[in-house]
């Protein structure tokens, strides 16, 4: 079988390049916007993603981690009773109002009260033990480096939080919050800042002996019945609940769908136009082949195969472009995150663009009328 589709693509690559580029850039747009949205909304789950431990216990039905409320202290005992549980640690949540320099007014902040032990779980991925030890000093806080301009202080300086003087003992990276500033303090400092709020911890973090058992243990520990006083989730479930809540609460989820449709449309228009042009450019050759007995179906297969290869080239190019964009974004502290499912969805959309473009180009073959060659 003569590989007409492939040989034509290679020989006339200039003709097909715009189609592949359209597919590649569509793919990049789809993936980067998804990565940006996920990156931004992952910020809502930073408390979970930056911590170690496989299981979280919190107020029943909590939809997003920032909506946590105090739960009974005996939750800790219930959790520790499970043989798989190796470590349980309280996590305090306090909403705060920050006053730094007068010129900056007040800033809404979220205070996380965490254990200061060297092997503590909360924020273990972004706060090393030496930095964490500094929190033992009363009134000590740690913030993300990028939030310093918002708070208007630098390390060693102090500000007023919920009416109490606190001082900044260090900064870290990867603590940025959505819609406010994250402040990490010790449990003792957090309790002092919690003026008039529920004094009980909002969450308990759990480390398991075997992290692979997380789903089974979470199901086992989650209390059943209508009178339950807390819920238990795996860390990834709570993170996903949180990101979903933010995606839909803000309407960003719908925005992603809408934007994807626009990209799909633009990609399809450009790709199909290029492919149609290529088919139209070879219409006499196709008509001759049809005169000699090649069926319409066989000719359509050639066009669809070309569309397929254009798609594959576009997918590879789009992958490379996306990787480059994500690396640049990462280096500039732009929040981006990709998931295997999201990447797969983008790849499927890109192949959808080529498939639809190919089908539109096949329609151009209707003009391949061999009788016209004789006029």
């Amino acid at each position, binding site marked *: *079988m*003569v590989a*007409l589709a492939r*040989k*034509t693509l*290679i*020989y*006339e690559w200039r003709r097909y390049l715009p189609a592949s580029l359209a597919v590649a850039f569509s793919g990049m747009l789809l993936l980067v916007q998804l990565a940006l949205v996920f990156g931004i909304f992952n910020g809502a789950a930073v408390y979970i993603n930056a911590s170690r431990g496989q299981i979280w216990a919190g107020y029943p039905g909590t939809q997003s981690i920032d909506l946590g409320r105090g739960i009974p202290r005996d939750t800790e005992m219930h959790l520790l009773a499970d043989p798989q549980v190796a470590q349980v640690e309280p996590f305090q949540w306090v909403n705060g109002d920050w006053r730094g320099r007068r010129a900056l007014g007040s800033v809404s902040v979220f205070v996380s009260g965490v254990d200061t032990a060297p092997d503590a779980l909360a924020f273990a991925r972004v706060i090393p033990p030496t930095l964490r030890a500094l929190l033992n000093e009363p009134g000590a806080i740690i913030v993300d480096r990028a939030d310093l301009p918002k708070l208007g202080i630098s390390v060693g300086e102090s500000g007023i939080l919920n009416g109490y003087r606190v001082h900044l003992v260090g900064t870290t990276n990867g603590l940025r919050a959505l819609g406010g500033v994250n402040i990490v303090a010790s449990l003792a400092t957090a309790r002092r800042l919690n003026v008039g709020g529920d004094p009980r911890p909002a969450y308990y973090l759990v480390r398991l002996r075997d992290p692979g058992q997380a789903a089974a243990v979470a199901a086992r520990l989650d209390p059943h019945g209508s009178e339950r006083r807390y819920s238990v989730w795996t860390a990834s479930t709570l993170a996903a609940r949180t990101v979903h809540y933010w995606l839909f609460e803000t309407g960003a989820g719908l925005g992603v769908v809408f934007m994807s449709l626009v990209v799909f449309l633009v990609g399809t228009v450009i790709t199909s136009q290029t492919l149609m042009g290529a088919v139209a450019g*070879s219409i*006499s*050759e196709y*008509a*001759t*082949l*049809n*005169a*000699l*007995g*090649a*069926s319409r179906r*066989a000719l359509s297969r050639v066009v669809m195969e070309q569309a397929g290869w254009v798609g594959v080239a576009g997918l590879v190019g789009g992958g490379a472009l996306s990787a480059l964009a994500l690396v640049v974004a990462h280096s500039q502290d732009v929040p981006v995150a990709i998931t295997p499912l999201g990447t797969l969805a983008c790849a499927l959309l890109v192949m959808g663009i080529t498939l639809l473009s190919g089908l539109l180009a096949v329609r151009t073959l209707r003009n391949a009328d*061999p*009788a016209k*060659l*004789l*006029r």
Partner: protein
Amino acid sequence: MSTATAIRARDLAKSFTVGKVSTRVLEGLSVDLAGGELTMLSGPSGCGKSTLLAILSGLERPDAGSVEALGEPVWYLNRKALQRFRLHHIGFVFQGFNLFPALNAVEQVELPLSYLDLGAAETRRRAEAALEEVGLSHRRKLRPAELSGGEKQRVAIARALAKQPQLLFADEPTSALDSVSGQTVIDILHRAARQHGTMVLCASHDPRLIAHADRVLRMEDGRVLADEYHPHPAVAEEPVA
């Protein structure tokens, strides 16, 4: 060599409508064409040569009349069956060579053969033989851009002959060629008729072709004005270099 009737056409009529103007191209035309003969269709532009060629070869449906090719009532076949009939029995040579720019000569010839499901080896053998027949074996790896006009037309003829069709239709095959290339193409067509018993019908203005034809049909205004047989036309039997 076969002289049996390959095509029997009766009372063909065809008109084209452009806007509100309807033009009658063929009017009650009947003709029989025999295998093993090179028949020339000559006449001024617009006399209906190409339309007749298209109707006889199963490319354009007549308004009235019938065409029987190799015993098959061509215009009673459905589209698929007609396509299959063309695949197995008909070869075409068009004025524009219509070669795929990306393929070399041998691939151009193999391409239509590949729809016959002959197997790779037989396909290659037939393609090579057809190129040999048109004297282009040594150019078989070249793409159209590297071939002269005459060579391109010879590749197009090889593409039509490789299927070993019983019916070969050619539309102005020499009009874009210089005299030497034109002569070569004529010889090849003639040999196809003589050696393979193929019915060759050739629409052309080219007077050189007339001298080589077994039979000349002169057309005007959609009718055959004269039907002349040339019993001993000049034939170049030796292979083309």
